[in-house]
């Protein structure tokens, strides 16, 4: 059977965001994978060099829709480290609350998407309904469902009132029951097991060698969690465990994420019961002195790495973001080799890819055609066919 080169993406129903996996197939088996990224490339790092720190707060938040708070948390920690600013305890607790609320809504979202990838739409509908509980809590406290605009340099901009705390605790009770239900489904539903068990194998030493991060690494038995290893915000004094399974497959990633939901609920309960009194914001100067700092947090998908180099002005001199999905990409290519075509979407979905995050570096510019020249539909179609033919895709 001749090798068929099948392009999955950049536009493909399985991929929520444009990404291109060129799969070389031998019948139903995947032989080779080539991953091409850069389609949602917005040049955020270059843009950040042209904006002041207060304005960058809202730009760094829009790197990704579902882990936006992890990026903001990193950015504020970086700036506060260079300023040598210690934020009030209460602000730290509120920041941890938002980090965990975001982990909840990201994991629920992923459970639904994974269910959809393997054709289990009922699970998709149920998980996304329960996610609404978390979204409502976030909207109630921060004023917006996704980009919370919660952090300012030196603390937090909105406070958590007594009534908010009561609502959050109620929400957590409901979600705990749902998490139990999903754990039961994930472990016992035969058809999910059929599609998830020993699919997309990533052995521990391969995961270590290719520097996989987050639930993808933890499902292969590697106990790495920035919240435990390098505690930030108020993780030092919140009791929680790092979840790992050693099944190295997609089912392991499902189980790790479901158990992390249960863990996050416990953390949020602890935070709400021990929220210290005090103010929530300390005024920060506009100019940041010369210096460099590194900050990384445990985003829902893994280690999110930020580097800031400041030059004493109002604008950062260089800001580097490396998101968890980029770190997991070499591991994904490794996992895809040797599997079935039918499993490609679920394996890709298993690392919970956030392509928007990954392509955050540069301004996309159409090189050849003069900007502003109207391309006719026919010319675009010709261009597409030529572009694909050059790469030998038989589509």
């Amino acid at each position, binding site marked *: 059977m001749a090798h*068929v080169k*099948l392009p999955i993406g950049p536009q*493909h*129903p*399985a991929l929520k965001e444009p990404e291109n996996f060129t799969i070389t197939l031998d019948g*139903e088996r995947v032989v080779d994978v080539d991953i091409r990224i850069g389609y949602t490339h917005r040049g955020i790092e270059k843009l950040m060099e042209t904006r002041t720190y207060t304005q960058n707060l809202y730009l760094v938040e829009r790197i990704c829709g579902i882990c936006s708070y992890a990026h903001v948390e990193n950015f504020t920690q970086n700036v506060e480290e260079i300023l040598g600013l210690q934020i009030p305890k209460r602000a730290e607790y509120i920041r941890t609350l938002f980090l965990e609320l975001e982990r909840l809504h990201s994991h629920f979202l992923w459970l639904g998407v994974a*269910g*959809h*990838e*393997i*054709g*289990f*739409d*009922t*699970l998709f*509908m*149920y998980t996304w*309904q329960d996610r609404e509980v978390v979204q409502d809590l976030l909207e109630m406290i921060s004023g917006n469902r996704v980009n919370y605009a919660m952090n300012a340099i030196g603390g937090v901009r909105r406070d958590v009132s007594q009534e908010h705390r009561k609502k959050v605790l109620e929400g957590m009770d409901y979600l705990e029951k749902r998490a139990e239900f999903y754990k039961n489904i994930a472990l016992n*539903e*035969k*058809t*999910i097991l*059929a*599609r998830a068990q020993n699919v997309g194998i990533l052995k521990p030493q391969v995961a270590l060698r290719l520097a996989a991060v987050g639930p993808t690494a933890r499902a292969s038995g590697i106990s790495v969690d920035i919240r435990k290893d390098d505690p930030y915000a108020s993780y030092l004094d919140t009791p929680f465990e790092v979840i790992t399974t050693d099944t190295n497959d997609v089912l392991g990633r499902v189980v790790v994420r479901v158990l992390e939901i249960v863990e996050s609920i416990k953390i949020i309960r602890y935070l709400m019961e021990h929220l210290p009194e005090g103010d929530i914001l300390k005024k920060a100067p506009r100019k940041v002195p010369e210096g460099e700092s590194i900050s990384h947090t445990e985003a829902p998908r893994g280690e999110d790495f930020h580097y800031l180099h400041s030059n004493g002005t109002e604008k950062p001199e260089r800001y580097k973001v490396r998101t968890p999905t980029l770190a997991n990409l070499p591991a994904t290519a490794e996992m895809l080799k040797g599997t*079935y*075509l*039918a*499993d*490609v*979407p679920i394996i890709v979905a298993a690392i919970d890819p956030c392509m928007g995050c990954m392509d955050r570096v540069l301004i996309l510019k159409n090189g050849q055609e003069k900007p502003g020249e109207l391309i006719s539909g026919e010319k675009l179609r010709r261009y597409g066919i030529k572009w694909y033919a050059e790469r030998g895709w*038989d*589509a």
Partner: protein
Amino acid sequence: MGRIDFLLSIVYLLLFPGFLFLFAFSLFAEYLDRKIYARIQRRVGPPFLQPFADLVKLSAKEDIVPEKAEHFMFTAAPIIGLAAIFAAFLYLPIVSTTGLHSFNGDLVVVLYLLTIPTLAMFLGGWYSGNVFGQKGGMRVASLLFSYEIPFFLALLTPALLQGSWKMADITRFEAAHPLEFIVSLLGFFIGLIALQGKLERLPFDIPEAETEIVAGPLVEYSGRRLALFRLARDAEMVVGAGLIAVVFLAGPEPILPLEPVYLSWLVAALVFLLKTLFVIFLLILLKSAVARIRTDQMISFAYQWLIPLTLVQIFIAIIVRFFGGI
């Protein structure tokens, strides 16, 4: 006198238990399918006439035949599929226990006609000239072998019990011995799962699993041709469910012993309708409770579980027939 019979059979053929009825019933079945599936997922679901609106809209849309596609076969495939289904529907006993024309072996004819739409889907995919379509077509073909065998065997056990291939005898026999249903209960469930596989519905909808290879065999279809294929699929669901209702649940025969005096054909049709809807309801439940499985898993599931179970069922039927002395 001949002319009235002729007119009656025209009415039978075209209007009531014929094409118009099947057309309306399959649209209603699709509506029911999408509505209950939505309500299970706590969504609102489509309005009543949505399937009809989809059909009309699709037939009005532009109908593209790709350059690389083989024009004749690309057009013929959906028509063949639909024609086979409509023909199969005529043999089902709806109005009376005999259907339009019943002879010894009409069960086998209906079963045969039910496989043609799957073949039509394969041809449609293969001749569409698109690599996704061909891959989808190949999957439909591999599916065909794993789900025709259990479906055939499961549906033949009641015939075995009664000893004749005529659906009319089977329904009369089952109405007379209601407890027969327990004996062929295993066959009923296997037939249900195999029908789900034949119709390529959720647990087995691998050919057009949209998250893997776009839309499988139907990827190049649009406009009227796609509308025909969708209608063929809905009709196939109705005919399949009807067949299971006839063979296992004694079709138009009301189980409870009331003897309708007049309008018996209306009561028979209503009973048939209810039983078919019950079977469709079971299919919907099956669809919403499971995830999609892979091609290789599906084939191994068919050969490791379904076919051996049908053999067991046939064995039981033989024993009951031989010893039971019914």
